[in-house]
């Protein structure tokens, strides 16, 4: 088993679509069109890449959620990254996804063109290696991402401590998903009927932390894998919940997600991080309890304390509707800036940068609007 091709079988996909159509017929009409939020940008990407949206009945609409850390990275935070990268004798390391996100004075790529030492890394461990190689420089890793990426940063910081490195720092932009989902559901004009929950984030935290979505908001949920069959099967499971008027957290991705998550990862996270009061999200504003900082025990590795970059709030460009797209209030094509001037080559909002951003997905894969295909 290779765990990839098996979950892309087109004949099985057809059978699943047929089941979805049948099950949808038994879902109460009052719920239609169903608004299903796929929280994770990876899921948004799968939906577009495999043309899944075109296969599905019109009565199922997807609301592309805020689960793409690059898409919700606020301008002000990016400006701070650049301020750190501009410091002398500093190497600023980041994942490729964050390189092109526009700040108010351009992107990290622009900063590099101006002569800053900005490097793209695949893993936080690569940044640690750079710190070992360059003891005369401060090496800063821009730690970006949800719970999926947090354990990797945590274990890297623990390793830096074991090695006694004093020139390795973390600029922490980790964020946590649940406060954002509940903040979205608390807004009156946002309608979401059910959730396809992020598979890889859940592999870390497990399925239990989502319980408030069921208990407090009565939203059926399915933890979902990333291959096309995973997504179709999860959608079918969600529809069956609607049909049977059940409301539970189900797990489609059991080959990867255990109910209790990953104990080693959670232990490292508990040691290295503490929760910040609040964090700013691009397009969504400040969300209470969604931010993560280094714990006191690891404060020596905190780039924010070391460099103290100024925090200046920066507004999103006039006319942009990034926040409305992120919360499902409108589609990317409803934004007056979509396509022109905002495009992947000249991104104005962050949703146009990452391939997981809803706007970039619409831009790349927009061939025929849903419903007019075949």
């Amino acid at each position, binding site marked *: 088993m290779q765990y990839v091709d098996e979950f892309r079988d087109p004949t099985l996909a057809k059978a699943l679509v047929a089941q979805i159509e049948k099950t949808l017929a038994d879902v109460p009409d009052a719920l239609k069109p169903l608004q299903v939020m796929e929280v994770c940008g990876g899921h948004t990407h799968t939906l577009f890449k495999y043309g899944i949206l075109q296969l599905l009945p019109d009565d199922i609409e997807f609301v592309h959620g805020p689960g793409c850390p690059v898409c919700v990275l606020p301008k002000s935070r990016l400006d701070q990254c650049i301020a750190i990268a501009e410091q002398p004798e500093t190497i600023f390391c980041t994942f490729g996804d964050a390189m092109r996100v526009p700040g108010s004075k351009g992107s990290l790529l622009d900063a590099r063109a101006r002569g800053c030492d900005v490097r793209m890394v695949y893993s936080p461990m690569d940044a640690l290696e750079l710190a070992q190689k360059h003891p005369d420089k401060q090496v800063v890793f821009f730690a970006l991402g949800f719970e*999926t990426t947090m354990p990797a940063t945590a274990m890297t910081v623990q390793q830096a401590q074991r090695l006694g490195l004093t020139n390795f720092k973390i600029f922490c932009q980790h964020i946590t998903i649940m406060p954002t989902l509940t903040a979205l559901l608390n807004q009156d004009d946002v309608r979401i009927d059910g959730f396809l929950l992020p598979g890889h*984030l859940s592999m870390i935290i497990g399925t239990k932390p989502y319980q408030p979505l069921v208990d407090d908001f009565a939203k059926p949920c399915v933890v979902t894998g990333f291959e096309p069959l995973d997504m179709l099967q999860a959608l079918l499971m969600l529809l069956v919940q609607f049909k049977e008027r059940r409301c539970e957290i189900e797990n489609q991705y059991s080959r990867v997600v255990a109910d209790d998550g990953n104990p080693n990862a959670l232990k490292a996270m508990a040691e290295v991080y503490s929760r910040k009061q609040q964090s700013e999200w691009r397009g969504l504003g400040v969300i209470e309890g969604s931010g993560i900082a280094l714990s006191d025990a690891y404060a020596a590795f905190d780039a924010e304390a070391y460099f103290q970059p100024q925090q200046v709030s920066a507004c999103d460009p006039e006319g942009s509707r990034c926040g409305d797209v992120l919360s499902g209030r409108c589609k990317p094509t409803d934004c007056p800036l979509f396509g022109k001037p905002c495009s992947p080559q000249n991104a104005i909002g962050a949703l146009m940068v990452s391939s997981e951003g809803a706007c970039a997905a619409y831009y790349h894969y927009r061939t025929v609007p849903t419903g007019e295909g075949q």
Partner: protein
Amino acid sequence: MCLGVPGKVVGITDAAGLLAHVEVSGIKREVNLGCVVNGATDELVGKWVLVHVGFAMCVIDEAQAKETLAALESMQALEHELDDFSQRSHLDAGNVDASEGGA
């Protein structure tokens, strides 16, 4: 950004540092096993793990994967039976292109 790719642990490179070679679509790279190790690192050789930013994040559960596929296949078998029964043909309308490469 939260993508992970399945890969097979082919050998331990540094048992104390919890590092191993993992083969992902034919390419070998060094991966940290800190999140998945529960005892001797050797026990992980030959296992499939999900790799994300240089770390193995979980051991993929083969029994669960088989169960998921079996559920899909039995659903398809049922679908065929019903299909023959009602002679419906509209199922051919859709087409998923599965030939494209991995994400």
